[in-house]
């Protein structure tokens, strides 16, 4: 079996070296300036999934002018672009997939440090931002963790790093029972974290990376000056949207480009509900609440107005979730937390747009269980800004 194993070993090492040299996602080398050029009206910027989108987004902030409006949110925020706003406004969309409060903090802190903090911020509030299980899984922010640490130290927030690398509240003494629970929970999560770590590490020899490295090699030799290729025509694809996970090569698989029929959409929603999702093992994350308070206060103290929007889910998802034990109660707790924080922080408004019908969205305006298509986004923005000073933005 010598030849068999040698072939595999040499093949993996050779492929990894080649991908590292070509570095299609600029993971190991700095991205060139042209990538961050201003977009023309019909262009959009694509982030292939094999990119560390957080690092790219933070780098991007260096190259933009101070925006008028900053958009913070998860992948649900990603399709919100300047087309929804008045033409003369400068919009910066900092939507990041699987975002947690740490991501919002990092982006805000970076913009503040560079003096680019805008006068208005719109935040899409996903309910799972307050689900500790979902937050434990959202580890992407570690790539931009230094901004989070800066933010915490500015606020004298002594978060201590736990085994997961996340910050924990200061000075809370845990009982023996709590400590045991914490350790066992952490142990349960270890294989998942290891698995994610391995998948991430082995992305260097994954097909999307290899394919792009080969493409770039054929086109440009070993030059890395090709990021500009990733700015594409808006008519072909949705703005700042992404391909399916781990599918960086085909940014938009064929199935994503076709409009889904209502029954397909409902099947997709059912699938999301039945498979592990952000609503699983729902526990209210008290620590997230602390971080949320800190962020809102900081934004507010900078003289920036905030509009927080809770966008709708697909109605079938809402219905299915309503059967989950405690879900309705926890959702009310989340909304109450946001509402109460909004009411005590100056210049912060909360718009609950979770009621699909009230907003006026159609099922066909949903991309899947949680993501909105442009039609629904437009309605949500209109619903939340009507009769307020925010309507001037649209």
């Amino acid at each position, binding site marked *: 079996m010598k030849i068999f194993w040698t072939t595999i070993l040499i093949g993996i090492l050779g492929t990894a070296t080649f991908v590292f040299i070509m570095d299609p996602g600029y993971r190991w080398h700095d991205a060139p300036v042209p990538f961050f050029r201003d977009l023309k009206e019909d262009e959009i910027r694509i982030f292939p999934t094999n990119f560390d989108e957080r690092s790219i987004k933070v780098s991007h902030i260096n190259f933009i002018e101070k925006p008028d409006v900053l958009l913070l949110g998860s992948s649900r925020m990603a399709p919100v672009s300047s087309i929804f706003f008045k033409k003369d406004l400068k919009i910066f969309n900092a939507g990041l997939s699987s975002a947690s409060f740490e991501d919002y903090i990092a982006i805000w802190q970076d913009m503040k440090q560079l003096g680019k903090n805008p006068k208005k911020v719109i935040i899409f509030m996903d309910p799972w931002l307050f689900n500790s299980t979902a937050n434990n899984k959202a580890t992407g922010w570690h790539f931009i963790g230094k901004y989070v640490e800066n933010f915490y130290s500015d606020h004298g927030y002594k978060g201590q790093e736990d085994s997961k690398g996340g910050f924990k509240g200061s000075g809370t003494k845990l009982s023996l029972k709590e400590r045991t629970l914490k350790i066992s929970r952490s142990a349960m999560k270890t294989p998942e974290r290891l698995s994610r770590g*391995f998948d991430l590490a082995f992305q260097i020899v994954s097909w999307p990376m290899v394919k792009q490295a080969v493409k770039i090699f054929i086109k440009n030799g070993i030059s890395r000056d090709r990021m500009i290729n990733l700015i594409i025509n808006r008519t072909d694809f949705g703005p700042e949207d992404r391909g399916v996970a781990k599918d960086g090569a085909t940014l938009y698989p*064929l199935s994503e480009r076709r409009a889904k029929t209502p029954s397909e959409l409902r099947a997709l929603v059912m699938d999301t509900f*039945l498979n592990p999702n952000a609503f699983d093992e729902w526990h209210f994350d008290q620590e997230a609440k602390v971080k949320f308070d800190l962020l809102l206060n900081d934004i507010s103290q900078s003289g920036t107005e905030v509009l927080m929007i809770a966008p709708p889910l697909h109605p079938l998802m809402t219905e299915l979730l309503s059967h989950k034990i405690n879900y309705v109660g926890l959702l009310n707790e989340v909304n109450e937390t946001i509402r109460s924080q909004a009411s005590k922080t100056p210049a912060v408004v909360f718009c609950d747009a979770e009621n699909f019908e009230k907003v006026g969205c159609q099922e066909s305006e949903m991309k899947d269980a949680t993501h909105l298509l442009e039609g629904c986004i437009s309605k949500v923005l209109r619903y939340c800004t009507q009769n307020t000073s925010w309507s001037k933005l649209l």
Partner: protein
Amino acid sequence: MLFNSFSFLLIFFPLVLGVSIRLRGLPLIRWITLASLIFYSYAGQRWFVIPMLFTTTLDFYLAQFMERVGHLHSKRRKTIMVFSLCGNLGLLFLFKYSGLFSETFQLLFHGSLKGLVALGLPAGISFYTFQTMSYMIDVFRGECVAEKSFWKFACFVSFFPHLIAGPLTRHNQLIPQLDRIEAEGVRPQWSSGVYLFAVGLTKKVLVADRIGNLVDPLILDMSKLTSLTGWLALIGYSMQIYFDFSGYSDMAIGLGRLFGIELPQNFNSPYKALNPSDFWRRWHITLSRWLKDYLYISLGGNRCGPLRKNLNLLITMALGGFWHGANWTFIGWGLFHGMILILYHQMQSTWDSFHKYIQRGVTFLLICFGWVFFRSPTFNDAYIWFKKLTFLDGVGANFLNSETLTLGAFCILGLIIVNFFKNASSENWSQVSDGRQFAWGVATLAALIFMNYSSKFLYYQF
């Protein structure tokens, strides 16, 4: 956790096998069982372990109890058997079929069956319930003695290579081998285990998933199919499901061999079958045998006259189809196979008189038609797909694009492999030439590169 994931290949499996090689006796069996439970708990949601442990515990103790009470045909034995069947089938109904029945009730009577809410489907539930059921039936029939060691029984049910998608392994196939490794320790068959796993990985990642990526968009909306794309999708799906499932089986058998355990063969070049009956001796062999031994024969088999035999066949195939998934289309698929089996039995002498390539071609086409039911979400979709296949809506000549051409190429490649290559599990993997070692090394390397964005196994959903 999937077989085709780096965490499985680089952490889980080496760790479990490495420790297993050093252990002997009951600690070895306990270790494999615990590892299997951990594997299972990461195959989906953690609570999936609970129904499996329930089935394992229930049947272990019921079998013991059954052996202690009375003679073979005693009433108490029957009661225990019924109790076990209710437990197993009840679990299957609860997790797999309750949603379907609730939906159908709503559709038919516009009412709601409160309490019947579709729960998450624990991966492999159909496989392990059938395994424990076969064990219980054999104990009931007096064909085997009840297992005395709970750990060994739990290991038989949960042994991770076969847990999620088979092969459906009988207790008399696995428990004696567990006895052996308990006494002698694990003696891996390195060469055949590794190569068979590599073959399975290659089939899954390089063929099945690539075809799946091209077929899925085509049949997303059946009404948009043309006759030609309909045919292409049909052949493509036939290849996808074969390479996906047989790839998983090869991996499972390979992993078993690395533990020194021989799992039963599940595929024997099914598309080389000369007739529908031959197909079921080659496709998902372990399930076919299960259905024959525990359902068809229990219904009377072919001992009660031709009419009853045909009815038994239809019932067996319909229930076999329903085992695959909670959708009426699976019953449609089973009935379709039941009917072509009956048809074949009726005209066996005529059928067998044709040249074998004609027999093989016709059988392949019939099997492909069956996949229409299997793949379509509803009967209406199946009807549309069939309609497209008949060219009634025109040919649809403008189907040529890079995706359909690639799919066509994959279909041709798949047809060549299934028709002209030897079955992987019957190859001699203990002596592999340098050239073949290199070729399989390259194929495995390619599979590893593609693996990071591979999909789940189709049979995981069953």
